């Protein structure tokens, strides 16, 4: 055929256009659909979407198989492969099922902007509260005031020293007398005042009409129970040890309680609270009255 280059180009162009027109009513080839440039108006069909669905199902199966060995369950080793596999799944669905690959780039930008913002927010939160957690806790724990239900004179119970009036937590001698100022209800013993105040016992323990904590064992009738917990210990000795060395013996269902309490929890939560010997004695004296 003797055609000049101009004509050839025009014909090629026509052919190309015709091909595109034709392809628009068919589907794109598999490799072109997933990896190549697809002209506008060309879409996938059962072949492409079915293949992708099988691919995604296989990834899900692999993810499951990764955590089948018990040694890998909850281990840090599997985090990276699992995250990578789910990111692949994520973007396959976005690019092909949501056909973002074939869309106006503005849609990509909008979605990626939202996704990036979401990631930044999530990462910031996890960093703030995960990595930098110890600092605010060390500050707030000695200052925490337990929440109380069913207090008759609500205003009196709520009144407590403003943060400015609180002494620095590091000085144990100043700590003890700080809370009683506002928190003392009329007629309460020094031990009870400590219990609901600076010693913060009330945030975890329950005493009818005094405190409603749930993390530690209830202390109603503790004076009677304490005498029988450890053989050879008097009630007074048992209670003192439970305050000073909470992990020496952890009460549980064996003692007739409704649940087992967690070893190490009290020493961990009480880490910022310092009690003087007098404080301990006052608490022991108060708890011994709970028969």
């Amino acid at each position: 055929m003797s055609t000049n280059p101009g004509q050839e180009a025009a014909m090629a162009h026509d052919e190309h256009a015709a091909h595109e027109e034709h392809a628009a009513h068919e589907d794109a080839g598999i490799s072109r659909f997933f990896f190549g440039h697809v002209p506008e108006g060309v879409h996938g069909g059962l072949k492409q979407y079915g293949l992708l669905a099988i691919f995604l199902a296989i990834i899900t199966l692999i993810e499951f198989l990764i955590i089948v060995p018990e040694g890998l369950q909850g281990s840090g080793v599997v985090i990276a492969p699992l995250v990578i596999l789910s990111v692949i799944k994520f973007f396959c669905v976005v690019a092909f099922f949501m056909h973002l690959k074939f869309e106006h780039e503005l849609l990509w930008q909008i979605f990626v902007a939202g996704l990036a913002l979401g990631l930044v927010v999530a990462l910031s939160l996890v960093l703030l509260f995960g990595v930098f957690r110890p600092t605010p806790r060390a500050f707030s724990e000695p200052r925490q005031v337990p929440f109380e239900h069913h207090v008759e004179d609500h205003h009196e119970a709520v009144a407590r020293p403003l943060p400015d009036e609180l002494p620095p937590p590091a000085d144990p001698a100043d700590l003890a007398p700080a809370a009683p100022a506002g928190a003392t209800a009329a007629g309460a013993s020094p031990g009870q005042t400590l219990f609901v105040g600076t010693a913060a016992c009330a945030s975890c323990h329950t005493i009818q009409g005094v405190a409603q904590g749930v993390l530690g064992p209830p202390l109603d009738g503790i004076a009677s129970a304490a005498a029988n917990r450890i053989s050879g210990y008097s009630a007074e000795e048992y209670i003192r040890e439970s305050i000073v060395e909470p992990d020496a013996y952890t009460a549980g269902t064996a003692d007739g309680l409704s649940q087992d309490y967690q070893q190490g929890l009290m020493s961990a939560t009480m880490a910022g609270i310092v009690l003087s010997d007098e404080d301990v004695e006052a608490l022991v004296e108060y708890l011994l009255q709970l028969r």
Partner: protein
Amino acid sequence: MAHADTTHAPPAHPPAHEEETTTGINHRKLLMWVFLGSDCLFFGSLIATYMVYRGQSIVGPYPRDIIDVPITTVSTFVLLMSSFAMVMGVAAARNGNQKRLIQWLWLTIVLGSIFIGFQVYEFNLFRVEGLRYETNLFSSTFFTLTGFHGAHVTLGIFWLICLAIVAARNPAGRPSHLDVDIAGLYWHFVDIVWIVIFTLLYLIGGFDGPPEAGHAAVQGWNWVTGLIS
């Protein structure tokens, strides 16, 4: 896409969708993508909240006592297949094949409902086992996140049922390709959110215990802080 719509729409396609826009993107479609972008933030925050409180519950049941990974793998597979059915429905709508469209829509609806059935079963099992919304940090953050996801799926099911009914009543070009396409975007988005939830809450976080058992996480973070400092 507006251009593609005009080219390939069925003959009875209502002209309302052929509007010209400054971006060249149909306004409803643009709106859906903007919504999905913002929904990333919504779920991002809920997922972050779960991760922040992960491994810090001091009373049980803990995830390792109660999370059932094999069953959830099955429900994840079901949701993934519903996405496949949905995309086939969109393809059928594009080709103007109303009969196929209705079939794929109903298959999507059934698969989505099976997924919700798994979730109802799981939530109820947790409740019976003593994991209520207020039990611990794990239950509160878990139920909030997966509950909102379940609500999204449920809304999607209602949406698709509406489309299927409209399609059955109006064989000629209703719902339009765009109607189905936009519902499909929403449906697939719900699927990708679940991909993230499944990985983080089940495959990675499903074996968490009380704080000392969450040691791997603590070590991980110590490693990260070690890098930073």
